């Protein structure tokens, strides 16, 4: 079967958007994982940056093939998560959020000041190695895995932590282990997203992984709702499509984008998909 030219054009026009939907879906899941244990960590953009930078260096400097680069791209973010995890996860609420933002800013300074990372010029000329099959394959796999975890006993413990940490600890949930597990999973997902994004868009720069993207990733999960992994992905889809759908409004579109977020939070407090995972009776 051959693709008719108009369809080919259509797919090409929205090709980057289609990539972005998948990548942002992965980022939303990376946020979902930590929110699911009641943690407000905003380190996802930093993890994404580590995944992106390390994978591009592997491609460009070491000449590794992409089948090796993609799995290895989780390495740097996961190691970083393990190192910062212990002292950082003792914090809660706002403090944790701000600490993770601070770590992201420190990383940004590293990208800017170390020549290997290209400084302000970033890294360009990245070959297009990722494609939709990889992106959506990983997204589906991640949704499936998180869904299965959510339905298991681990999921119950996670929900207990989200509702009331002290009570969960009394019930015998090892809080630190779960938090650490969630942080590492989150880092791995964000790292993969960073690697995929870098290998479809030919350029990465130090400004892409700071405060603003961190908050945007959070808003994906919050808009969708954190009851199920799929809800956060839906949130990412909506917020990624919105600026493109509103393109005709030119400079007022960000105003409307903001208003839509406000209205959604005020009137859909559980997110767009406020359902919960149904578990087998305990």
């Amino acid at each position, binding site marked *: 079967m051959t693709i008719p030219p108009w369809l080919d054009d259509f797919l090409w026009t929205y090709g980057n958007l289609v990539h972005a939907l998948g990548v942002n879906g992965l980022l939303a899941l990376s946020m979902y994982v930590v929110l699911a244990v009641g943690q407000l960590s905003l380190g996802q953009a930093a993890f994404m940056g580590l995944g992106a930078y390390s994978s591009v260096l592997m491609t460009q400097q070491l000449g590794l093939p992409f089948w090796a680069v993609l799995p290895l791209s989780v390495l740097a973010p996961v190691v970083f998560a393990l190192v910062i995890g212990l002292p950082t996860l003792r914090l809660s609420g706002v403090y944790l959020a*701000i600490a993770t933002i601070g770590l992201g800013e420190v990383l940004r300074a590293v990208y800017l000041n170390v020549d290997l990372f290209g400084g302000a010029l970033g890294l360009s000329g990245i070959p297009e190695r990722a494609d939709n099959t990889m992106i959506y394959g990983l997204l589906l796999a991640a949704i499936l895995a998180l869904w299965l975890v959510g339905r298991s006993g681990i999921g119950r413990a996670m929900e207990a932590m989200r509702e009331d940490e002290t009570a969960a600890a009394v019930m015998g949930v090892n809080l630190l282990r779960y938090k650490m597990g969630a942080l590492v999973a989150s880092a791995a997902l964000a790292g993969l997203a960073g690697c995929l994004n870098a290998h479809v868009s030919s350029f990465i720069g130090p400004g892409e992984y700071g405060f603003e993207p961190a908050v945007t990733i959070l808003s994906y999960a919050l808009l969708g709702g954190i009851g199920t992994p799929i809800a956060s992905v839906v949130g990412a889809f909506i917020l990624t499509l919105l600026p493109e759908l509103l393109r005709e409004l030119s400079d007022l579109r960000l105003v409307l*984008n903001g208003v839509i977020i406000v209205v959604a939070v005020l009137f859909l407090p559980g997110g767009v998909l406020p359902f919960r995972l149904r578990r087998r009776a305990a």
Partner: protein
Amino acid sequence: MLAQQLVNGVLLGATYALFALGFTLMFGVLKVINLTYGFYFSAGALVALWLVRTLGFGIWTALPVAAMAAGLIAVVVDWLLLTRLRSAKAPELASLMVTLGAVLALYSALTAWLGSDIRRLPPDVISGEALQIGSVRVTLAQLLILGAVAILIAALIWLLRGTKLGLAIRAMADRPDAAELMGINTLRAAAIVSFISGCLAGAGGVLIGLQRNAIQPYMGEEMMLRGFVVIIVGGLGDIRGAVIAGMLLGLLEVMTAGYVSSNLKEAVAFLVLVVVLWTRPSGLFGRAMTRRA
């Protein structure tokens, strides 16, 4: 050079402290992560600019008017967006999210309306004269701003420690339900706190805009990250803590740029933040006015 650098640090620190005053009050008392705070800072500066340039106000009459305008915007935003969430005892994520949307909408509307160009107050609104004391130079404008900051800090501490309203605000920060049982109208008190915070933000915007000779819609947004550092290191809701943390941060940045490397100037703030949080999670200066967050 050391003397001048110390003065530079204090002046920079004063701007951080000024920004953080209302921020720590809003955050510490109202218990929401309100990302719109920086917008009131910008709004104050822009209103003052309009008053001075279009209506011919003097800067010292424009300052309180602009501050109050920013305060009113803060009350309206808080009332429209956060009252419901607060009375529903919604999790802090919701307030973070709703103010995030509001920030996006507000700044975009402001730039769509005014453009994102930098503007400045007419150069003659404040004297550009400088004092030379030994090897140290300070401009008159900088000294005036330092004075204004000191007055605002003193006024805020007096309000919180020396008045009945301040007592009610501190009670509300501690236990909102119990405060309500004492007959304190916490909705009204929250509006007052929003107003005061907004006024402080607006005044900060005018003064800092004046000192830097640059006013543009995103100026508040650019202060936010450092604002977070200051109020967290100082302890949420702790006025004196915020002032000390602001000063220390200013000095640290200047000393880093002056004696280590200017490449590290920005990163040092966040490094300090992370280290403080790792070692003293409730801020550097003992108990905050409000415990926990």
